[in-house]
Every structure is written in structure tokens, then in C-alpha cells.
């Protein structure tokens, strides 16, 4: 039975959840579609009629031509505000979410998003500002963007920054476009055709390089989980445009030969790109710009706690070295009058600086151009700025310390029951392997992940990084209590025990969730998102569904 064919809930009004927890194939829905709650003429908001003044002034004015007027009103759900609120709150509570559950999804840094960020983002002067407002009326927004840029520069050690990219992989794309522009400016774009990517990098790194037209070359990891320096040196040459490295890597391991790596790349005339998605591990401890990297993207929605999941919006600013600065996307929020130190000092005490003026610098002839409409996801800038300001220098250092401590606590407490392919001090995340459970009991990492759901915990990232068999990539973040970590440890030990004593029970999981195991490929690739009104033909249905294309790497 498809979701669209499901009957509405019983009339008790209780219908708050799916009731398909039978572990079987059948899926019964007790929270109906919002269309099923619709009743004719029911309204959440009633628009006011045009005022007498508007009628008077509008009389005799040309009306819109009939050709652009719609003939039939749209068939929107007709519900009260309360119906709507309950419907979406119920749906929201069916999800695993950071505000409801522990969410140790490796590589995603699912930390708690403090509500003070939301307060700041909703301040009317910020929330109601319009991106096309005149500069003279946007000084506060421009100052906030400038200040955030200054803070990110200080945190990362890069001399220049663009806030524009909308997400991490978009930041990567921006970095690679700047890399190409740099080589082009030096007349070397034709021969520099390769980008080197370690096998412990994020999957987006080689995808990004390929998008910009580069051929990617994989550099293997050594037995300690770091870059094999000899393999790197052998691959470097006059045909290499850049190295893209995720540091700490997807193994949660800091590249301890980073100085040699950067020096070798620079010597070969190539650009060194650091994927900064894992910055949470090194906040206040390692500054990639200072270490010699040329470019790095931040994930404000990971490290700086702006909410994510569900498709965003994210924010992926890029910091760059002096040699890439001319190529940054335009425009750049800039302080054009006033002293930078004074503006910062005043901002810290909550004051604006008389005489200071901010503008968008659009006069950048070597820029790669705009990579995003307007200036980027401004609401995320407000939240990230709030987060950084509310933590301060010492707070940011505590964040990385606690994140690393939490990951290592899990590593030490679980390494006797789950294999650790790289058994060494980790950073913000730790990668276990379920290969022992698979080999001895036929219980796979997917089964373990499903069993974790039965305990009200979002599973870790699974089957990534690719270099770890049956990988379970756990990132607890710094925002979870010792009790939560201990609970997770208990759950993981219990599942390992169950895998040994009753593997079939693990393979049946989950049994407490609104739905059991789904055909995930079909759900992702052939979703049925149309609603057909009863008694009406499904006009939107194509004669035959087109074959979906291969999904891109997330």
C-alpha cells in the first residue's frame, strides 16, 4: 500500500503516528496527508478586503489581462492554523532529530543548536531586512557579515574570506574554481589537469574536482590512517593542480605529517585545499591558513551549530591565502570607513561605531564571479555569529576539547566489542567496524544501525569511509552529557550481545519505530509525491515513469 492510498486515521483525533511497526511489508498510516484534513472553506488566515482608499485609487486603472489570470483557484488544503500546526508537529516528532534524540551521525557534527541563535536570527531588524535594501539602510547586516568574516579569518588563520557558498560542497566548488582561475592567471591551466585526493577524504572532494573538469588521482592511506607521503610525492608533478585533503580525515584522525604534505604540494606549484568540515575537532588549536593551506571551506552548519539536516540551508564560507584572494567570489562585505579594531572592540560591547561605514565590494576584476544569489544564506551568518560570540575564545577551545574527549571515551569503552581498524587516538569521531559481527553471526552494520533506532538513537554514519569494512562512524559531539554517552555505550554493547545470542532479533529491527525496514532505494529514487483527489484522474501521472538517473554522491 502506498502512502497516497492509505486511509485517513480513525476519527479519534489521536492519529499521531504511523502504526506500521510490525516489521512487515505493510505500511499503515495514522497521520493522514494534510489534504485529508481539508474541509471546504476552512481557513487559517483570512485576507483583508481591499481598503476603500485602494478601491478608490485603483478605479479605472488597467487590470491584469485575462491571459495571465488563473481560471480556477489552486486546490490547496483548507485547514485551520491549529490543524496545520498539529499536523506538522506530529510529523516532526516521527523523525529522529537532535532536539529529541542523541544523533551521533559521523561526519555531520549533529551538535545541539542553541536556541539563542534562533532568537538572534528572529530579531526583526535582521529577519525583516531585505537583501536589496539600499546599503545606507543595511549597515547593521553588512557589519554583521564583516564581523563574522573577521572572526572566521581569526579562527582559521586565512587572510581573506567569502561567505557566499551555500554549503560545504559548494565551498569546495568555489575553492576549486579559484584554483583553476589561479593556474589560468599563471598560464598553467592547460597542463595542470589533476587533483590528488586521499582515500580517507570526504566523497564530495573527488566529485567537486571532477565537476570543475579535473582528473582525480586517489592517494592511499598508510597503515596508521594518514597520507602515504611516498605515494603523495610520487603523484605530485607539473600536471597537478591541487591536493584536496579532509583533515582530520573521515577516520577521525589528524594528519600528523601535515607540514610535509603542505610543503610538498607547494613545491610542486599546486594548491592545497583543506576540507574544513571537521573543524570542530581543531577549533582554537590548529589554524589551517597559518599552517600553509591555500583554501578551506567552513561548514557553519556543523562547527558553528546552525541547524542542518533536511536539506539545509547550510553555509560554506571559504577562507583563502593571499595568492587566491584576487579570485574570491564577489561582492565582499567590506569596511570602507572607520578603524577595524575599533569596530570590533565596540561590537564586543554591543555598540556600533560612529562614522564606520560598510559596503559590498563588487569591484574585483579577477573574481570568479558570484557563486550564489545575493550574499549567501544570511540567516545562517546570524546564527554562526551568535554562536561564536556566545562561546568566546575559551568556549571555542572547550568545544574541540570536549568533542574529542567524547569520541575517545566511546572508542575506549567500545573497542572490545566492535573492531577498531585504526586503533589510535582519534579526534572528533571514531570509526568502528562491524566485520566481527558479520563474520561470526551474519549481522551486518546495517542491521546494527536499525537496532540502534529501536533505542531512540539516530544511528551513526554507516559504510563510510569506504576504506573501512562494515564501517560505523560515530561522532558524539561536545553537546552530549556523560549519561547520554554511557547510555549509548550500553545500547551498543547490548546489540553486540544480541548479535551473538539471537542474530535474527537484530535482523528484525527496528520494531519500535513508526515504520520498519523500507525499500530505501525505491523511497529515494521513485518517491510518489503526488496527491490525487478522490474521484479525479491522476492528471500528473506520466504515461510511463522515466528511469531515474543514478543518484549523485551525497
Amino acid at each position: 500500500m502506498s502512502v497516497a492510498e492509505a486511509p485517513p486515521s480513525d476519527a479519534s483525533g489521536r492519529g499521531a503516528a504511523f502504526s506500521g511497526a510490525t516489521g512487515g511489508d505493510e505500511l499503515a498510516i495514522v497521520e493522514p496527508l494534510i489534504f485529508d484534513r481539508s474541509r471546504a472553506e476552512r481557513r487559517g488566515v483570512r485576507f483583508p478586503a481591499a481598503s476603500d482608499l485602494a478601491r478608490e485609487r485603483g478605479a479605472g486603472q488597467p487590470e491584469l489581462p485575462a491571459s495571465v489570470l488563473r481560471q480556477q483557484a489552486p486546490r490547496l488544503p483548507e485547514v485551520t492554523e491549529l490543524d496545520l500546526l498539529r499536523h506538522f508537529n506530529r510529523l516532526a516528532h516521527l523523525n529522529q532529530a537532535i532536539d529529541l534524540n542523541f544523533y551521533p551521525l559521523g561526519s555531520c557534527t549533529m551538535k545541539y543548536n542553541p536556541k539563542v541563535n534562533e532568537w538572534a536570527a528572529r530579531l526583526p531588524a535582521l529577519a525583516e531586512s531585505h537583501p536589496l535594501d539600499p546599503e545606507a539602510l543595511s549597515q547593521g547586516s553588512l557589519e554583521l557579515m564583516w564581523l563574522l568574516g573577521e572572526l572566521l579569518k581569526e579562527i582559521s588563520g586565512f587572510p581573506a574570506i567569502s561567505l557566499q557558498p551555500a554549503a560545504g560542497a559548494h565551498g569546495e566548488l568555489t575553492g576549486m574554481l579559484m584554483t583553476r582561475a589561479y593556474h589560468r592567471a599563471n598560464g598553467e591551466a592547460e597542463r595542470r589537469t589533476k587533483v590528488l585526493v586521499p582515500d580517507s577524504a570526504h566523497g564530495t572532494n573527488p566529485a567537486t574536482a571532477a565537476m570543475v573538469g579535473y582528473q582525480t588521482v586517489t592517494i592511499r592511506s598508510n597503515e596508521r590512517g594518514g597520507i602515504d607521503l611516498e605515494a603523495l610525492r610520487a603523484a605530485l608533478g607539473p600536471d597537478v593542480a591541487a591536493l584536496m585533503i579532509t583533515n582530520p580525515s573521515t577516520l577521525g584522525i589528524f594528519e600528523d605529517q601535515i607540514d610535509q604534505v603542505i610543503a610538498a604540494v607547494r613545491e610542486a606549484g599546486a594548491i592545497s585545499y583543506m576540507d574544513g568540515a571537521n573543524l570542530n575537532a581543531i577549533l582554537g588549536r590548529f589554524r589551517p591558513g597559518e599552517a600553509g593551506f591555500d583554501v578551506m571551506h567552513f561548514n557553519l552548519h556543523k562547527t558553528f551549530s546552525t541547524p542542518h539536516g533536511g536539506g539545509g540551508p547550510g553555509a560554506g564560507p571559504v577562507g583563502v591565502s593571499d595568492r587566491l584572494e584576487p579570485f574570491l567570489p564577489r561582492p565582499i562585505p567590506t569596511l570602507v570607513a572607520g578603524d577595524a579594531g575599533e569596530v570590533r572592540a565596540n561590537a564586543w560591547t554591543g555598540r556600533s561605531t560612529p562614522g564606520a561605514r560598510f559596503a559590498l565590494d563588487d569591484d574585483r576584476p579577477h573574481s570568479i564571479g558570484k557563486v550564489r544569489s545575493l550574499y549567501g544564506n544570511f540567516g545562517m551568518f546570524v546564527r554562526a555569529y551568535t554562536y561564536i560570540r556566545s562561546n568566546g575564545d575559551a568556549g571555542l577551545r572547550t568545544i574541540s576539547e570536549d568533542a574529542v574527549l567524547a569520541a575517545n571515551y566511546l572508542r575506549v569503552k567500545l573497542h572490545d566489542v566492535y573492531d577498531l581498524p585504526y586503533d589510535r587516538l582519534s579526534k572528533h569521531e571514531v570509526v568502528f567496524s562491524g566485520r566481527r559481527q558479520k563474520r561470526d553471526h551474519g549481522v551486518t552494520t546495517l542491521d546494527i544501525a536499525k537496532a540502534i533506532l529501536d533505542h531512540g538513537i539516530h544511528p551513526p554514519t554507516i559504510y563510510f569511509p569506504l576504506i573501512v569494512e562494515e564501517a560505523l562512524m560515530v561522532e558524539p559531539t561536545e553537546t552530549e552529557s556523560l549519561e547520554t554517552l554511557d547510555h549509548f555505550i550500553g545500547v551498543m554493547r547490548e546489540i553486540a550481545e544480541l548479535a551473538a545470542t539471537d542474530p535474527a532479533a537484530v535482523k528484525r529491527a527496528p520494531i519500535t519505530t513508526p515504520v520498519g525496514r523500507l525499500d530505501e532505494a525505491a523511497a529515494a529514487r521513485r518517491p510518489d509525491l503526488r496527491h490525487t483527489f478522490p474521484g479525479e484522474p491522476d492528471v500528473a501521472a506520466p504515461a510511463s515513469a522515466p528511469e531515474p538517473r543514478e543518484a549523485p554522491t551525497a
Partner: protein
Amino acid sequence: LRMPDAARRHAALAERGIVAGYVLERDDPNLRDTLLLATTELTGDPDIERLVAALEEIR
């Protein structure tokens, strides 16, 4: 709305705290002296009257 000196008037209105829509010639030189304005159900009569009066004052 087409009017002479739209960009200058737009800037002068901004000084008075009125954002008189968008100056279209910023994006298209063929649309000189044109302001793009939109009102919604949240724009009250007094706001509209204020805009009209201010536009008439700034010559």
C-alpha cells in the same frame, strides 16, 4: 512606476526611512527611471499615502 530621476528619488526616500521598491536600471539600462514597487495585505493605507506624499515632495 516611471518617473524622472527615479534613482535619485529612491536614494532621497531612503534618507527618510522609506524603501521605495527597487531601482530597475541597476539591472537593466533599458529600464531607466523605473521603480519596481509591490504592496501586500500588510501594507496599510497610511504607508501608501506616506510614500505618495514623499514622492510628490521630492522633485
